[in-house]
């Protein structure tokens, strides 16, 4: 009897200790498999050589980064327990977590950090080549310290250290052989919450729980299986039936999202894309008449009814905008609303007036001039956006003929041959304007053959200089002021017409909790996700 009472007291103390530790009221449970639909199937799992969207959706469960981020894009500790940026911004010191093991059991040390940044990300990562261009050395005074030496300050670098953007690789595995064709690309070894088990091509990737994960008690799930289903209708059916539990990034088209939303077992989440922030833009070939005339570009921007586009083509999943930087950067101060507003009720009248002024009067048939509009080959809503653009332009006397080609052909036309009049695209802002925004209109990015850069061939010394200064400005306030000026100029000059920010919709099975807990959404590790 006495023994029993004692046990109860002990148990009570234990419970108090747990609740003091700050666990939420809902008790997380261990176990369960999460089936994620990723579309299309990734070409590789080497997220250090490919930033393709599906690669990140899988590899982010396997690799950790030095940092994680909260929804305000503030850095949080991960493999780095703490960090200090020197006054001049040219030295960044990371204190690394001790006792972390890779999936093969070998310890994680500063040598792995040095190897990852100097030998891999700086050399072969498509974005890392730019992001870490200023890093001259990573010093490793001891296994738990990594010191980054920079040529010039690179404030944007601190936003690019997630496990998705900059995965930390085991040096002992990847340093042997050519990193570009390394055999472990497709059998990855990381420190993340899930271990790679099997990739059956055309079917699935299987990831099992890492029992030795460095976050105590995590992850909750036993397994994540990433499935590849080519047909949109079947993807929706698998989610409806509960055979699959999560799908994002447009894997389910918006019209199906609306249908699935009504089901009792499914919820729609739009959070989790804050570090990507796609902004839709109309692209003008600014080196070609009549688009070398700012008034023509402004007129077209005025002619687009943003609200109509969002409501009818993106099913309400979007937000009107005028400028290149997403409002998701409002917490960091880099977003500015002080720009020309093209989203006005009398847009069509203004557009007609601008075109008259520009010297393109309507002819007898009501048409001012004829152009070709290249539709973005990324699926249904882009096709409809192209058709809408055709109608909107007809209202202001521009006859647009539509052209639809496959991705490779279209990329070549826009970014290599510049053989187009008007097209559309959506560029991700990514974690910082230096990484995601400069490429669209800085003259350094007029590079034939390189895709998703300055395909409009916009170039002014003024905007280039402002962006160059913002790149290395360590003071957040001054940096924000520089970007405010950039936004004002490019929105007025309209080399591109930014129309709206897209909200991707993640379809999630309600039985799964705490899945989307980071601004990287499906690109995060799911270590805290659990099943009811």
């Amino acid at each position, binding site marked *: 009897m006495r023994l029993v009472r004692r046990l109860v007291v002990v148990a009570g103390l234990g419970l108090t200790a747990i609740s003091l530790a700050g666990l939420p009221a809902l008790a997380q449970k261990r176990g369960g*498999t999460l*089936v994620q639909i990723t579309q*299309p*199937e990734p*070409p*590789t799992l*080497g997220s250090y050589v*490919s*930033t*393709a*969207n599906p690669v990140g959706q899988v590899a982010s469960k396997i690799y950790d980064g030095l940092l994680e981020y909260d929804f305000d894009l503030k850095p949080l500790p991960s493999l780095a327990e703490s960090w200090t940026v020197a006054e001049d911004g040219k030295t960044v010191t990371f204190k690394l977590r001790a006792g972390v093991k890779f999936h093969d059991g070998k310890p994680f040390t500063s040598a792995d950090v040095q190897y990852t940044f100097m030998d891999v990300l700086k050399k*072969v990562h*498509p*974005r890392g*080549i*730019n992001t870490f261009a200023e890093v001259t050395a990573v010093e490793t005074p001891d296994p738990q310290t990594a010191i980054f030496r920079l040529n010039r300050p690179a404030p944007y670098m601190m936003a690019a250290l997630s496990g998705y953007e900059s995965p930390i690789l085991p040096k002992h595995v990847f340093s042997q052989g050519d990193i*570009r*064709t390394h055999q472990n*690309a*497709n059998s990855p070894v990381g420190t993340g919450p899930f271990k790679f088990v099997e990739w*059956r*091509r*055309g*079917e*699935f990737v*299987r990831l099992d729980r890492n029992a030795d994960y460095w976050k105590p008690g995590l992850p909750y799930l036993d397994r994540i*299986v990433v*499935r*590849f*289903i*080519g*047909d949109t*209708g*079947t993807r929706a*059916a*698998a989610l*409806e*039936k509960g*055979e699959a539990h999560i799908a994002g990034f447009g894997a389910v088209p918006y019209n199906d999202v609306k249908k699935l939303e009504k089901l009792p077992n499914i919820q729609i989440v739009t959070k989790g894309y804050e570090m990507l922030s796609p902004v839709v833009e109309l692209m003008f070939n600014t080196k070609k008449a009549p688009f070398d005339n700012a008034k023509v570009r402004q007129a077209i921007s005025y002619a687009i009814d943003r609200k109509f586009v969002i409501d009818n083509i993106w099913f309400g999943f979007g937000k009107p905008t005028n400028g290149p930087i997403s409002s998701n950067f409002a917490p960091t101060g880099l977003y500015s609303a002080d720009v020309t507003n093209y989203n006005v009720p009398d847009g069509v009248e203004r557009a007609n007036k601008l075109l008259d002024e520009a010297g393109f009067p309507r002819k007898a048939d009501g048409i001012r001039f004829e152009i070709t509009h290249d539709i973005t080959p990324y699926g249904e809503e882009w096709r409809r956006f192209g058709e809408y653009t055709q109608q909107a332009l007809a209202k202001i006397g521009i006859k647009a003929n539509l052209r639809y080609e*496959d*991705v*490779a*052909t279209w*990329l*070549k*036309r826009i*970014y*290599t041959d510049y053989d187009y009049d008007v097209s559309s695209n959506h*560029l*991700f802002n990514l974690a910082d304007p230096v990484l995601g925004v400069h*490429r669209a209109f800085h003259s350094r990015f007029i*590079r034939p*053959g*390189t*895709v*998703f*850069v300055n395909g409009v061939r916009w170039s002014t010394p003024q905007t280039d200089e402002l962006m160059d200064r913002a790149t290395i400005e360590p003071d957040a306030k001054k940096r924000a002021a520089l970007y405010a000026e950039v936004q004002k100029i490019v929105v007025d000059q309209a080399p591109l017409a930014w129309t709206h920010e897209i909200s991707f919709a993640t379809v999630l099975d309600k039985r799964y909790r705490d899945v989307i807990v980071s601004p990287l959404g499906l690109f995060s590790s799911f270590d805290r996700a659990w099943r009811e």
Partner: protein
Amino acid sequence: MRGLRLISFIMTRLLQAIPVVLGVVVLNFLLLQLAPGDAATVLAGEAGGAPPEYVEQLRARFGLDKPVLVQLGLYLKNILLLDLGFSFRNNAPVLGLILDRLWPTLLLMGATLVVSVGGGVMLGVIAALGVRTWRDHLISVAAVIAYATPLFWIGLMLILVFSIRLDWFPTSGMEDVVAFHEGWARVADIAHHLVLPTITLSLFYLALYTRLMRATVLEQRGAEYATTARAKGLTERTITLRHVLRNALLPVITMAGVQVGALLGGSVVVETVFAWPGLGQLAYQSLFARDFNLLLGIFFLSACLVVIVNIIVDVVYVLLDPRIRVGGKA
């Protein structure tokens, strides 16, 4: 004697096939050069953009910086050594990628052939036996409908009815990825997943064979040997099953030989709808990714398969109809 002739026939046909297959390879290679854009651009595009140094690195690695004829020469040399090359996009050898997908393809193809040929022959005979009765009309109307309905629509409807509403079959995939069954349970699981895609893919050919079989049976029953049999006093049923069927099968076998080729390519839709990990999807994806090594590998394998099936069909002819001789001088 007949066995020897058969073997020498097969050997000759195999030798004759080599230039045919090589011709297919060269033609495909040159045709693919007409497609704008290359693998490096697509990879960079998927990555959301990349610096030009990176794209050039990729091109050099893929061998795309060499002149087309040099590329073709290298490719032909490798093919003759039975080396299908490397898929840079998938970071894996082409042969391995294809072999991984081959058995799901063969499984689906085999099941479809059995269902469509078996069902088509049976329904065709039933319709012919009861010509212009309600059975014949029912079968003929159903065949026309099945013949005319688009595959993807049938697939999605089957999923909607038998998977979501009735919950009899899984929506897609080849096996249960939550349970990961093993042994016989896995075999049963795969068979369970195979049902809907097989039905979908079979329907079109089932309809085709039904109509073909009905027509040939009717035609053959008017032939002189059938009249002779009738004069002997045999029942219509015996005449059809013992004498007519064998002769009526020949056109169906010819069609089935053609179907095998079409199944390899034509199953893309069904593979996509049911997320079946077959070759069709692989070919489709590699085309859009401009992964030409992989695509040429699939074409090469398909060409080989079609050649082999044609030889098999010819051999089956001989077995079905002793009047047909192989490798004859005339």
